[in-house]
């Protein structure tokens, strides 16, 4: 892609981020969820997966989906510094998406967690994968986190016993900033984060197909 001068000046500088190594998790249903990092080329597919949720008021899906949609666009078009996207798939079907970014070498910022398939703690597992990326692969010391929904507040702020730090700025609204510190991560990781590596090549190949969900439990009667 030829980047002209104006476009170049609009793009934030990029940090060389080590990739998130894919893993797979056996869910309660027995299904295997593969978690892998999405590329910019994957974004149009992910936008398609998120779009139906933008009008779902229940459980704040609309706010979270709309913001994630914008963040995915911003990632694809180089308008956010050091953003990443992780996606969860079952048999290649997109079941959840999480994203965040590096603020600097030591501090990360969690953006959003969307679980499309529900009842299997997919959101919790993808959030844990996101924290795993910040702490164990990007080598960061802290992750700044906010929540827009009561579910998010319970799952992150309460279950991870996040440190409240309202004086610290976060790019999103909702609950004032909370922080996952390295110590809190080490404390909760054994009970929150799981999965196996490496992902068998054939399983990973299927995961990368990023098949759009044919149904959304949040939208009864949805037809694609």
């Amino acid at each position, binding site marked *: 892609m030829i980047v002209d001068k104006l476009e170049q000046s609009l793009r934030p500088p990029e940090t060389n981020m080590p990739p998130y190594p894919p893993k797979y*998790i*056996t*869910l*309660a*249903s027995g299904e295997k969820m593969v978690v892998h990092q999405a590329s910019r080329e994957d974004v149009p597919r992910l936008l398609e997966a998120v779009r139906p949720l933008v009008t779902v008021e229940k459980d704040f899906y609309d706010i979270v989906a709309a913001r994630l949609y914008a963040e995915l666009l911003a990632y694809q078009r180089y308008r956010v510094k050091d953003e990443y996207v992780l996606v969860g798939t079952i048999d290649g079907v997109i079941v959840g998406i999480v994203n965040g970014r590096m603020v600097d070498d030591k501090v990360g910022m969690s953006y959003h967690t969307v679980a499309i398939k529900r009842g*299997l703690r997919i959101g919790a*597992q993808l959030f844990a994968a996101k924290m795993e990326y910040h702490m164990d692969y990007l080598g960061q010391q802290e992750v700044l986190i906010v929540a827009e929904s009561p579910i998010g507040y319970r799952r992150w702020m*309460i279950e991870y016993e996040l440190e409240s730090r309202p004086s610290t700025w976060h790019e999103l609204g909702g609950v004032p900033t909370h922080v996952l510190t390295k110590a809190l991560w080490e404390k909760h990781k054994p009970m*929150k984060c*799981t999965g196996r590596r490496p992902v068998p090549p054939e399983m990973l190949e299927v995961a990368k197909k990023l098949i759009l969900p044919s149904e959304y439990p949040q939208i009864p009667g949805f037809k694609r």
Partner: protein
Amino acid sequence: MRKVGIAGVGHTKFGRSEVSLVDMLALAALEALDDAGIRTGRRHGVDQVFVASMGAGILNRQSSVASALVDTLNLQPAMAETVENGPASGASAVKLGYMAIASGMCDVALVVGGELMRVVTGWEATDFVATMLHPDAEYAYGLTLPAFAGMFTRLYMDKYGVTEKDLAMVAVKNHEHAMHNPVAHIQLVPSFHAIIEDEDAPVINPYVAEPLRVYDVCPVSDGAAAVVLCAMDLADRFRKKPVRIAGIGQATDTHVVAEREVPTDLLAVRLAAQRAYAMAGLKPEDIDVAELHDAFTILEIAISEEAGLFPKGEGHLAVRRGETRVGGRIPINTSGGLKAKGHPLGATGVSQIVELVRQLRGEAGGRQVEGARHGLAVNFGGFGNNVVATILSKEE
């Protein structure tokens, strides 16, 4: 005493309600009235309404729910009372309805149980449920029902050899049953391997109160269930042949669980069941289908033993042999039980009876127990300190 039967049943989808408590109760009630062939309004013929709810006052800041329901359904001037007996409120309300008709005071009684619990967080709901424990000896020390169930399970494991795998078998069975029950809260069958054997199991099915894991504990649910009780001598008035209430037994035990002589015994269950069998003139071996209060998987096993369906300490062996699933010798919790159908506290006792009526009528679809004639329900209040057992029989 007059014989009493059940002429109509109704049940909302358990899970999260989109309507208010009273509207939810009304939906279940209207379905039951319609099932019985009763119209609301003038000459409705309902003499008495009982509403079972444990938490309306605390969770929903609403009292006198029965009066509100009568007004909503236009059932004036029916008598109306709200009944609270912890998680056994539903069966208690059915018992009171039975007594009202058996005594001759009424001909027809509507019994509705319901709870709107998901207005609070899971932690708040757990704390609310714990208010039924002894305030000084138990609640003040932070004890909760999952904590009690965890300790009870540990004792049961040590004494009788119950394993975590046995508990997971109960969970999987009840989730499988729930897949055939359209009103069940959870429509998902966990994989036995995934929740207990897989290396990811400690995270995807974590301990809640060791040795109990997430899949050993019922969900927090909203929901309502209703039955129309009638005098059997008036059976011809109704659309369907009433299912007879053959026996009811109730018993209490110490409030403080630590004061029980043998902490693995559930004496109130044993006594309540014995009283119900005696009243019905039946024995445990006559029971074809049972709905037992599995708020925790261990309770299904323990209650099945205390109710005489299996020898003490052998309930888990029956689970291993597949005797408690549909198609087995004595299917238990065909509705999915509290574990998978859900446990809106005040609704549960009524919901159990709705399931038995459907089984005895042959209306249970994919979970039908063929040829079922007698059904047992055990509704468990407190940590076993107030228990109601009900036996229904199909009239030939």
